[in-house]
């Protein structure tokens, strides 16, 4: 296996819809696959095997992922309470309401605030901690497991625990008072002034472990010889990290950033559980998804809820495609968006 940093990772190339997963003998880009097809016709037997093996996965995927998304576009054009088939066609009215609703505007703003802060806070922290945990030292495996604990604990459990710790009379303020930090001042962690920062702290706590896992997997792919060569040349530890690790870790960092961006746009559980359905907007941490859950089937506004889903879908897709073209295209040529351009 070559460790050439240029080799696109599976995840990246998949994000680009490019099938060149690894440099191995089997990686055939879609273009060459199509080009070869007439010469090497797929036999009926192979066709049968392909259908048998991939059919179930494709069926389930189409039925429960693709079909609902398509259906959302359809339902979004109706005023529909969920009884019987939708009949009250109202065109783009739902979308007009969504796009002019200040509550939705606030939700979108919060999503993007959370997105930017997640990248800025979690990125550097995760890189530092991944480097730290990647050093060969005693006790490393115990530390590793403990750092991942928040990521494994479910959002509901984390949310329930934190929801009990964070109120004015909760454990956090009690702890600060016991330690005589801030004197007797009780901080309103969940109030509108602090909510966004409290949420960021919670998200960092919850998802940093995942970033670290991903980065550590990336670190293992960097050949040891590079560091040995660099230290023979007299490079210090930090120089090595800056000149070798960071550039070679680039693709993994960019994948993490992509997943983090998508996660930030779809954020739902933690604000919903810690603050509750009716407080998220007041405290300034509502998101598109909490807006959708609040105004969707739970309130009987099925058509409207679907329209919100469509808006959420489109915003996510625009961001994903932009990210691919502007950032991931550095790693792999030929994104979904311009598949014709070959390197």
């Amino acid at each position, binding site marked *: *296996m070559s460790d050439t940093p240029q*080799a696109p990772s*599976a*995840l990246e190339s*998949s994000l680009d819809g490019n*099938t060149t*997963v690894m*440099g191995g*003998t089997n990686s055939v880009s*879609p273009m060459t*696959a*199509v080009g*070869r*097809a007439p010469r090497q016709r*797929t036999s009926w037997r*192979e*066709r049968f095997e*392909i259908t048998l*093996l991939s059919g*179930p*996965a*494709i069926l*389930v*995927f189409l039925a*429960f992922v693709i079909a*609902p*998304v398509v*259906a*959302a576009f359809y339902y979004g054009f109706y005023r529909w309470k969920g009884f019987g088939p939708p009949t009250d066609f109202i065109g783009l009215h739902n979308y007009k309401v969504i796009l002019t609703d200040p509550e939705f505007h606030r939700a979108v703003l919060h999503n993007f605030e959370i997105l930017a802060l997640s990248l800025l806070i979690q990125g550097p922290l995760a890189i530092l*901690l991944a480097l730290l945990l990647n*050093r060969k*030292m005693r006790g490393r*495996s115990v530390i590793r*497991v*403990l*750092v991942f604990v*928040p990521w*494994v*604990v*479910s*959002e*509901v*459990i984390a949310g*329930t*625990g934190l929801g*009990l710790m964070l109120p004015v*009379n909760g454990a956090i*303020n*009690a*702890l600060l008072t*016991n330690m005589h930090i801030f004197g007797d001042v009780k901080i309103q962690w969940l109030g509108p002034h602090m909510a966004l920062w409290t949420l960021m702290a919670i998200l960092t*706590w919850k998802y940093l472990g995942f970033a670290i896992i991903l980065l550590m997997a990336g670190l*293992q792919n960097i050949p040891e010889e590079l560091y040995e060569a660099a230290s023979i040349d007299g490079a210090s530890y930090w120089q090595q990290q800056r000149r070798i690790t960071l550039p070679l870790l680039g693709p993994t960092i960019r994948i993490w950033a992509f997943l983090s961006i*998508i996660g930030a746009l779809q954020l739902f*559980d933690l604000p919903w559980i810690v603050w509750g359905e009716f407080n998220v907007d007041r405290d300034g941490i509502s998101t598109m998804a909490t807006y959708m859950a609040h105004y*969707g*089937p739970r309130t009987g506004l099925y058509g409207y809820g679907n329209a919100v*889903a469509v808006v*959420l879908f489109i915003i*996510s897709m625009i961001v994903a495609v932009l990210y691919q073209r502007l950032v991931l295209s550095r790693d792999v040529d030929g994104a979904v968006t311009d598949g014709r351009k070959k390197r």
Partner: protein
Amino acid sequence: MTTASLEAPRAKKNRSAQGGSKPKDPWGSPAVYFIALVVVALTVAPVAYIVLGGFRDNSQITVDPAGFPSPWRPETYAHILQSSSFWHQFLNSTIAALFTAVLVIALGLSASYVLARYKFRGRGLMFGLFAAGLMFPITVAITPLFILLNNLHLTNSLIGVILPQVAFGLPTTIIILVPFLQAIPEEIEEAAAVDGCSRLRFYFKMVLPLSLPGVLTTGILTFVASWNSYLLPLFVLSDTNSFTLPLGVQQFRGVHGSDTAAVLAFTSLSMIPALLFFTAFERRIVGGLQGAVKG
């Protein structure tokens, strides 16, 4: 560059990291341990609060919200371990997580095998289809998905949770598994063919065991994700008999809100399986993800 070399060195590296090299590792510098200690304290504190809180009684929690149990009161835990609703939800969560993980692996591995080892028209399209799914977690589709499940009469049934979870789990699974399958050297397959082994038999006899690290990784990730999932069950399950643990925790908190100790005990008991599962296999997950982030 041969694909043949991929599987062996990686497996070896993992094994040596797991067993042999541990005693040889040197001590790190005190500064590193100090940072690690602070980080670990921060990550573990909320979990410790939940677990320890379950051992306190409500008056202890009111008087000093941040204190340790004194005296320890295991009764709350015992009480919850005797409640049938906890075990019922525990069972529901286990069924949902097990079936989701097994189905994701069965469907995902087969599809990955096709993507990794067959050359056919539409392969790029198929890969693109699943890869697109990676961009859209279940949140986007939850409203129409609920309507679909309602039409299929699958609400209030674990099947209504399992099937969508399988579908939304497929993209990650396929992304992780395809590199593993591509790493199986062509020669093995050719040799098998010479010996009269059909490709399907080859799949069951060779592919399954050889891709085990990747299968384990995706299986564990799927199991934990299902065990923890909240949004989908929240929409799909409204009958308390079908509740999974996350919904149970929320409901318990709603009903016994003033009984903080009981809420904490219930919460901490419901997180244990996922935690144990993950801790046992943590190293394998890092190893299994390596193929996916090959840089």
